[in-house]
Every structure is written in C-alpha cells, then in structure tokens.
C-alpha cells in the first residue's frame, strides 16, 4: 500500500469532516455550516421527518465537559418558554449518536442586524429596534434575561421580521413552568452561573455589557441590564459604530435620540429606563414627533419638532395667512 499523500484541499475537507457531528440514525441530514460559536457549531440540516430545513446547534465534541451539554439543553428549554414572533423557536433537543448535545431551531433566512442595517434609513432602523425591544420585553415578562444582546445576535428576515438569537447566556429570574420548577430552578441557575464562570465564558460582549454584569455581581443583573445592551444596539443603529464605554453619545441631527441612548446606557441601573418597554416608548414618541421622557427640549427645539410633526397643517395655515394678508393689502389699495 503506497503512503498516503493529502493535498491542501483534501486536508481542509478532512479537517471539516473530522469535526462534523454524527447524524446517523437521527432525523437530520447535514447540509452545511452556518456559523461557529465558542463551544458549538450551527449547521444547516434537513429534517427528514418534517421535510424542512432547520438550524442545528451542536456542541463541538462529546469529549467536552458535560456541563456544556447541560447548558445547551438549558438554552433549548429557555427558548421553549418563549413563544414569540421575535424569538427564534426551538423544535427539538437531545443527544446525537456520537454523544454530542444538539438543539434544532428554526432556520432563519436573512442577515444579521449589523449587515441588514446598512441598507436601511434611520426610520426603518428605529422600527426594527422597536421589534427587538418588543421581543426582549416579552422575555422579561416571562422572567428571562438575555444578557448577550448585540447586533450579531439579531437576525433580520427577508420580510423585515426580527429574530433575537443566542440565548445561551440567558438567566432565569422568575419562576417558570415545568420542567424547571421551584427550588430546582434556583439550583439549576446557581449551577449554571458557576459553570459559566468556571469555563471563563464571556458573560456578554464588552461593548454591550453593563457594569453590573462585567463586574460579575450576578444578583445585580436585572432587566435594566438588557436595557443597557439595547441602548448599545440603538446607538449602533444610529451611528453605525459599536458603542464605547463612558464616551459621550453623539448622534447627528438628534439630541433627543442621543439622550435616549445615554439614558439606556447610564452606568447606574437606577438612571436607566426601568424596562425595555419604556425605552421602546421613547423611540415610538420620537417616531411620532412627540417629546421624549429622556430629553428636555428648548423652546426652539419644541417649535421645530412641532413644525415637523404638523408640517402639512402648519404650511396650510401659513399659506392661508399669506393669502389673507395679500387680499387685505389689495383691498386697501
């Protein structure tokens, strides 16, 4: 038998193949790779039972720490509690024949928010932002914090639908229905926090992470921590640049929106919007041409805003007054 020689292309193919999950005997067929996270890879797979494409999130190796498998299963359970059009639905979870934990989710066609935003106007971006706030507010109403909100974790579908992804760092702060009841939930949460810390996993993304989260005080993290991250997303949508900690927010042409970003990203949770809904409320007010709770406008700004809001009516009145004046002048002559 001649010694084996592997070309560059073959080497790359073997590297991919050796890392691929074993789907033999399962209902899924591998169709390609969608992306990679810290500990898992998301594949494009075909569900042969339901004849549809799914996104299959699979842990990297069965040899990896079993705590990671528990974490993936937990993410699936969290998602299962969140049936909302703005949150990616989970279809199935379990263990593949090779021992790797997996979670099958809806395959989202579209692009990440940071890519999708490039094509959009400011108003369109703000409307997308409202849908993100809506999904996050729903999760909060179910007692779940995302803790890793950022543009990369939001998908925008081809019809403008918004889906919040990657709930791997989510924290359950209120009682949930089975299968995680009462004390068992607390125990699970405590264990999960310990595991996350032990693995050195980044509990969020620095640019979008509030100080109480980066300092590791788990008990201090509440829905206002997600509000901080939402403020970062808002700032990104308005400036096309990731937010930087401590820097003054400057947004071209709108001090009111800058004030909304600053309030959402206040270092002290007490100075932030108390909820995602309240933040969304201010953005809705901006879109409607009404004053924001986060910004005290000057008389001139108020006039300009009112003019913009009632532009047609104001112009009609001005035109009417102008014509009346002209008529009066002609009548005197």
């Amino acid at each position: 038998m001649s010694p084996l020689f592997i070309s560059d292309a073959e080497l790359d193919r073997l590297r991919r193949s050796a890392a691929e999950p074993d789907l033999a005997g399962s209902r899924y067929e591998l169709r390609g790779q969608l992306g990679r996270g810290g500990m898992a890879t998301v594949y494009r797979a075909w569900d042969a039972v339901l004849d549809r494409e799914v996104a299959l999130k699979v842990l990297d190796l069965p040899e990896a720490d079993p705590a990671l498998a528990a974490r993936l299963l937990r993410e699936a359970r969290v998602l299962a509690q969140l049936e909302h059009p703005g949150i990616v639905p989970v279809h199935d979870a379990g263990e593949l024949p090779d021992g790797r934990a997996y979670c099958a989710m809806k395959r989202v066609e579209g692009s990440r928010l940071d890519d999708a935003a490039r094509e959009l106007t400011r108003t369109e971006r703000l409307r997308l932002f409202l849908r993100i706030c809506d999904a996050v507010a729903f999760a909060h109403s179910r007692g779940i914090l995302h803790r890793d909100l950022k543009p990369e974790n939001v998908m925008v579908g081809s019809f403008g639908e918004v889906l919040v992804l990657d709930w791997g760092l989510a924290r359950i702060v209120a009682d949930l229905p089975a299968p995680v009841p009462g004390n068992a939930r607390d125990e699970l949460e405590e264990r999960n926090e310990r595991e996350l810390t032990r693995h050195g996993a980044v509990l969020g993304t620095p640019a979008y992470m509030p100080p109480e989260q980066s300092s590791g005080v788990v008990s201090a993290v509440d829905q206002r921590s997600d509000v901080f991250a939402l403020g970062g997303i808002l700032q990104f949508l308005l400036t096309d640049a990731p937010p930087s900690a401590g820097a003054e927010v400057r947004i071209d042409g709108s001090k009111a929106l800058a004030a909304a970003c600053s309030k959402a990203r206040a270092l002290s949770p007490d100075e932030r919007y108390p909820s995602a809904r309240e933040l969304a409320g201010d953005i809705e007010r901006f879109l409607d041409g009404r004053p924001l709770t986060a910004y005290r406008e000057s008389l001139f700004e108020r006039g300009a805003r009112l003019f913009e809001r009632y532009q047609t009516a104001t112009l009609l009145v001005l035109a009417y007054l102008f014509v009346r004046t002209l008529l009066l002048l002609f009548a005197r002559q």
Partner: protein
Amino acid sequence: MAHSPTAIDPVPRPQGFPLTRISLLGALEEADPARSRNAWDELLRAYWQPIRRYICRRWHESPEAAEDLTQSFLARAIERQTFAAFDPRQARFRTFLRLCLDRDLANVREAAARQKRGGGETHLTLDAPAIASHPVLRTAIDDDPEELFHREWLRAIFETAMERLRASASLSGREVRFALFERYELGRSSTGGPGERPTYDELALEFAIPRTQVTNHLAWARQELRRLVLEELRRHTASPAEFRDEARRALGVEVT
C-alpha cells in the same frame, strides 16, 4: 551518539511507548540506546515530512534536494544536540524546530555560495528547480513561514491518522468502511485515482450497500478519524493547554 547521520530513515511508526513532546526530547539524550533510538524514531516520524515539504515550499527546493536537506539538517541536529536547547516556556517545539531549520538552511546556502566563489568544502547540491514540480501548489500561506510549517505539520498528523484508520479498519475487517470514506472525503476511487465527490446514493450503488449503511459507515469513519487525530495531537503537544489550542486550530473544536 546513537546514530550516524547516514543511518537516519523516516521510520513509519515505532512500536514503543507513547511519548509526549517533552518526555521525548528528554529521551533523545538517554544513555539507553534503545530508548534513545525510539525517541529519535518518534521525532522523525512526526517531523520528517513537514520538514521536507516545508523546505520544498518555503525554500523552493526540489523534492529530492529537500529529502537530502531534511536528512542533513536532522543529522546535524543530532550531532550538535540542537534540541537540547529547547525551552517549552519560550515557544512551542514546532516553532523552535522551524527556526532551527531556517537558520540551518540559511547557513547551508551561504556555505554553498562561498563554495561557488571558490571555497573548498563539499556540500549538498542546492541547484533548485522551481516549486511547480512539487505536487503542492504555492498558496498565500507560503509567505508566512510559521503558518506554512504548521500546515505541513498538520498534514503529517492527518496522514498518520488516515494511515492508522486504514490499518485499524483492515485489522477489524472493515476495509469497506475506509474505502467508502476515502472515496467520499478524498474523492478517490478504489484504484487511488482522483475523482469527483460522489453522493450518498452513488456510494450505495458503487459499494452495493443500502444508503443508511453509507451514512453509518461515514459516521464511524469520521468518529474514528477525529479520535485518531486528537490522539496524534495529544502525542505531539507538550501540555494540555497546547493540546486544546492545537485541537481548536486543527478541527475548530473545544476539548478538555
């Protein structure tokens, strides 16, 4: 010294104990000739091909000249106990070896240039044909010596793992699984020639087995290959941290 320079062969695989890179380097200088020989065999098995191919691609040597240069480099390394200077706290062994190799080849070329100008020493021929004669095409990584040597090292790891997979399949009467895997992943026919990557249905037809069995055979081969590659990586890294790092780079996976 256990060997004369001319006695070096790229031995396929020693039957001795598994060695980590650090214990192996220690064993190179062992008084016991059998243990020292084992260590050298292991080192050569791991690095002979990466060194030879690196010389081809980086130093633009023909395969034959690269073979000679590999041999002479390793012979000099044995004579001068070059690897005794390795400090795992400073760098990976692979990086250390590559730097030694580059320095050695630079010296060889300088000596050859001196000889052309009228020096008296006799050296290996260095009249190098173009890299085009080598089966591996020149790519962007050829400009990054560290990346290039890593890729050649990784190629050797995968070649060894594939050889071991072939041997273990043969021993356990699962030749068809390996043949199927090789056909699918490397696009090679049973005669070893290149070909297009077949579909599962085509494989089922070619090997006269049900489609589900194709899936199962490929899954088995992938799992075995992954296990063997990780085993090789573990053998050729000096610490658990380095192993994790290499596994991440090679397969994109996290291991503990």
